[in-house]
């Protein structure tokens, strides 16, 4: 018990406490003298910054956009591979593959796919369509990131939904069939309600994960063009390591924690209410 508590304190609680202390300071690591206590000034400055709220909006759009694409698609794929047919294991593995590849490697591949001379523009050219500036146009950059991220998240969501589907007792579905329910009504009134806890899990975990996104955005757009893909984590990075304002960056990090907590809590409440209904 003691080693576990000590590890928790040293590895988790103390860094968090130190991070919170930094958020109450003005701290430029290039300057000598260490952090200077400024109380809540950093929080006030961050909360009154348009740049921060713009990043919050982009973070919500990014997380929501990815979830809207991922959750139904993952459920659909799980239903598809829930049956027994030749090669189903291989099919499941292939669909899960993006999940196990590093996000950085995936981002590098998609950087080429989206580039002016990349695969997508090559295909567009083949069918006689003009090229698209996927990552360099402020109207398409965020959507392009969402598509990539949804593709990456699909396999993980599918596997969890598949586990949920396989845990549904067969006799419930058979009873529904005996009562005259077709496949759609079985899905709508038996499968879907029983998948609510799984859906809550998938959505909440994805919200927590997506709201902390950084590496794919750093590689694909660096937050541009015109800050259209600058999520809060990207802004934290820029504040900390480009502008050397670690106090502000730490305040943003704690505000991001509050945002993630609020989004996760909201999801749990909304989805639980939907499930009870």
């Amino acid at each position, binding site marked *: 018990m*003691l080693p576990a*508590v*000590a590890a928790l*304190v*040293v590895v988790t609680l*103390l*860094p968090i406490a*130190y991070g919170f202390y*930094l958020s109450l300071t003005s*701290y*430029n*690591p*290039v*300057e*000598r*003298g*260490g*952090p200077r206590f400024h109380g809540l000034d950093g929080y006030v400055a961050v909360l009154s910054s348009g740049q921060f709220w713009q990043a919050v909006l982009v973070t919500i759009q990014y997380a929501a956009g990815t979830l809207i694409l991922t959750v139904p698609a993952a459920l659909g794929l799980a239903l598809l591979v829930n049956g027994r047919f030749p090669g189903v294991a291989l099919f499941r593995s292939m669909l899960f593959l993006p999940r196990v590849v590093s996000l950085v490697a995936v981002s590098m591949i998609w950087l080429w796919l989206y*580039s*002016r*001379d990349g695969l997508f523009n090559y295909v567009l050219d083949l069918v006689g369509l*003009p090229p698209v*500036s996927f*990552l*360099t*146009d*402020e109207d398409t950059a965020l959507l392009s990131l969402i598509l990539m991220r949804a593709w990456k998240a699909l396999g993980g969501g599918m596997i969890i939904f598949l586990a949920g589907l396989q845990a549904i007792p067969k006799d419930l579905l058979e009873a529904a069939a005996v009562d005259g329910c077709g496949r759609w009504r079985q899905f709508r009134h038996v499968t879907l309600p029983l998948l609510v806890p799984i859906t809550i899990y998938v959505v909440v975990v994805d919200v927590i994960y997506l709201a902390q996104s950084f590496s794919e955005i750093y590689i694909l757009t*660096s937050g*541009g*063009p*015109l*800050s259209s893909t600058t999520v809060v984590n990207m802004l934290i990075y820029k504040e*900390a*390591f*480009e*502008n*050397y304002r670690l106090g502000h960056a730490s305040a943003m990090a704690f505000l991001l924690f509050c945002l993630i907590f609020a989004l996760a809590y909201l999801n749990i409440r909304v989805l639980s209410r939907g499930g009870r209904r």
Partner: protein
Amino acid sequence: MRRRVTLCVMSGIAAATMVLTACGSGDGAAGGNAPGGETLRVWFPGNLSNEIEWVENELVPAFEGEHDIDVQVEFVDWGDLSTRLSTAFAGGTAPDVFGHGTAATAGFAANGRVIALDDYLADLPAEDIADMTFLDHGKIDGQQFIMPLRGFGYLLAYRTDLFEEAGLDPFASPQTWDDLRAAAEQLTVRDGDRIERAGVILPADNPTSMTQAFATFLFQAGGSFLDESGAKVTWNSPEGKEALNFLTELYAGPDAVADGLGEPTSGAGAQHPLVTGRAAMSLIDDATLKSIYEQAPDVAESIQVSAPLGEAVTASFGGAGNGLFISADSKMQDEAWAFIEFLLEPENAKAYVEVVGGIPARSSLAEDPDIAATPYLKPYVDAVAQFRGNPNVELWTQLRDILSAQVERALRGVTSADEALDASAAEATALLEQG
């Protein structure tokens, strides 16, 4: 038993607190050297394989053989350099010697992170000091803080075959903005509203490079970023507005002759729009031109580079590129200077630019037959007197970011050039006033 557990927990917390406090103080009391202090730690910025190979296999062994000093070199990607350095400063583990762009000089100097090199320079022969091309670019208030290893610059490069195809004389490069605009119009190929081949493109990978392109035209118009004191923003002067309006008009409306904002062109080699034929002219830096010569030598044969355009002033953005600092926390400062001095010896300074590209750190190398025969070095060496760089002020990188955000907005047509410059000047002035 309970007391022992409590003691263990308390000592664990105390130890962790001490570790974290040490991480945070960043006073450098621990010094910046490896245990024993016998190994000179050097960080080079970048990840060019040629450079890594030359430094590790030739430069360092030669230095170690001559000076009996062990050198540990690490290459840090430019994108990670600020992150790595700031955490190293905070943790008291900064390397003895580190490379960076000259734009960071004033900030490091003001915070006492690097030492002034004047005492070391005083021991060099006068002719050696006179030979150092970019020495003045590394000075803050008359003190030398960085030793530039190479210079860089932006010049207009163009495809002679596309000039001929468009009915232009391939040996008569544009000399003024009007010439540039006229040539770009003639070279632009459109498919309806869409540009199939841009007449000209600017370095516009990201807002910072857009600002470097703006700087070229700002200097040509006779403007500057800041006044001579470095305390007043002047980029929104009439000259600045004239320059940014000229650039925005290249990208705007049905008569646009430029495109590709945000597309990576720096070091793009065979993927550069000049090579793929998606652009006929490009404002291009020496390293990118070198990458084209290395990756697409057949196309490179039809690329010509012209001298800087002359509007009010014949000038272009450029000057000292990356250089080396000595950490103020280093316990091996003499050894660190010996390493820098060794790297700047004529044969090493020459080898460095042959590997990395750019303008040699020594002006005497301009006459070197190998340098003069290298087509991607010669035009930049010839134009060295016309290159102008960033102001050496402490807040420059933050000021530049403010300007860059607005320059991008103007080039993308979100705001007018005049509004962009005035808005960024107001924000930058407030930052300068805050200090």
